């Protein structure tokens, strides 16, 4: 995992870069959300989908066509 100090900076730095203000409680919520979601997001990004042919404009009301 990242250096904890860098991880702590992620939320305030990200907000600052977008010009978004946040109070202490909101920051605490976002830090908790980051703690909860970031590890699985990193896992998700690591999922190997290189051989997967994307489904173009999927019709979610139906089964996908076989690639």
């Amino acid at each position, binding site marked *: 995992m990242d250096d904890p100090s860098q991880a702590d900076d*992620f*939320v305030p730095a*990200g*907000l600052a870069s*977008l*010009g*978004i*203000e*946040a*109070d202490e*409680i*909101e*920051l*605490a*919520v*976002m830090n908790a*959300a*980051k703690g*909860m*979601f970031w590890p*699985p*997001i990193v*896992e*998700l*990004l690591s*999922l190997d*989908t290189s051989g*997967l*042919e*994307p*489904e173009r404009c*999927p019709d*979610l*009301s*139906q*089964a*996908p066509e*076989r*690639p």
Partner: protein
Amino acid sequence: MSALDLTLRDQAAAIAAGDADPAQLLEETLARIEQRNPAINAVVETFPERSREMLAAAPSGPLHGVPVVIKDEWPLPWRAQRFGAAEMLAPSAPGESGPYRGLRDAGAVIVGVANMHELGAGSTGNLSVYGPARNPWNTERCPGGSSSGPAAAVAARLVVGAVGADGVGSIRFPAAYCGLTGLKPTFGRLPMAGHHMAAVSSTIVSGPLCADAADARLLASSLAGEPFEAGEPRGIRIGIVRDTVSEDVAPAVREACEQAIEALRAETGGEVVEIELADLEAAALATVIIANTESLGNLSPERLNRLDPGLSPIARGLIKFRLLLPAAASVKSHLVRTLMRRRLVNAFEDVDLIAWPTVPAVAPPLEAPLVELPSGVLTADQANVRGAGLANLTGIPSVSVPVGLSDGLPIGLQLQAAWGRDELLLDAAEALERANGRRWVEALSPLAQPETTEA
């Protein structure tokens, strides 16, 4: 027995046969809401004159004169939806939503707007601008979310039918927590017109919450304007998955669900088949990411810097956090959608249904919505999304059916089927009800007991 305590279909039949007066039923329903609702905060607004006008103009449809409630996610001609929040972050105005039109054209009478989790962003119902709805089985417990009010209203028998919405389990969670049958239909099968996310959401559907599957079938048919025909399921192949969704589950929930699956197998002369369905955790996360990024078009830093202070700090923090999600995660989530849709095509060649617990534990306390699982203590939201996201991600239909009680709180089993096989889900739910002697669909919450509330 008061007509109030009949099933939805029996109320409709009694009115059609002239055995019940719909005007009297409406007034009795309004009186019951006044009497029972303060304990559960399920209905956040009634409009008796509008309801009487709706009844006066009601056509002789399949729900003629039947009182229902609708989630605060759908606009009505006389009321804009508030989405359970101090502000919605999306345009909102009174109007004829698809579910409103479906109910109106079926002759139903909307008697109230039902509470919901703030901005639809939670599985518990513990946050709302109106204050939380409460679970009629235990008012200190979560009713489930985000369709908290619709579920609590039916579980307390304020009404016998409610319309909710499900973007990441939001019909099925409260159905499970409140002991109801909740249908998340195939994507696009039930009306979405008028929903503020209708043009951009690929996960949200409207759907019914009722006491049992026959009522859910009638309400779904009425919303769709086409019958969800009943069939007799025989030889159903029930798929089970040995994974977190079925194994990291409170023991009582696991036992009740396994017994229900076996009962369904026996009732239909079917078989239970163990199947592989990998990457379910990735699928759940992908659902959350897609659902949370599809609304970002309405947000800008300037807009986020002037959020209504009436929004909860949790909502404000989570809204802002959405803008920090990596774009690559959104793209990857859509690839996971494709991956899981193709895997389901293969799975549904081998099985007719896929079954696992709707939620891994019974309704947690409102004050601390945490659940204790074999893997440890998790927030209810973390735990619940694991089993619910797949249907929203891929578009398949899913239903939660009551299959037991633990510590006086309902347990729900989730059944999922291939695209367009919503009827099979309801057929299977009815078969399971028969197998259980209708024990769990006829179980009444303490607040729904006629003798304790109307003596």
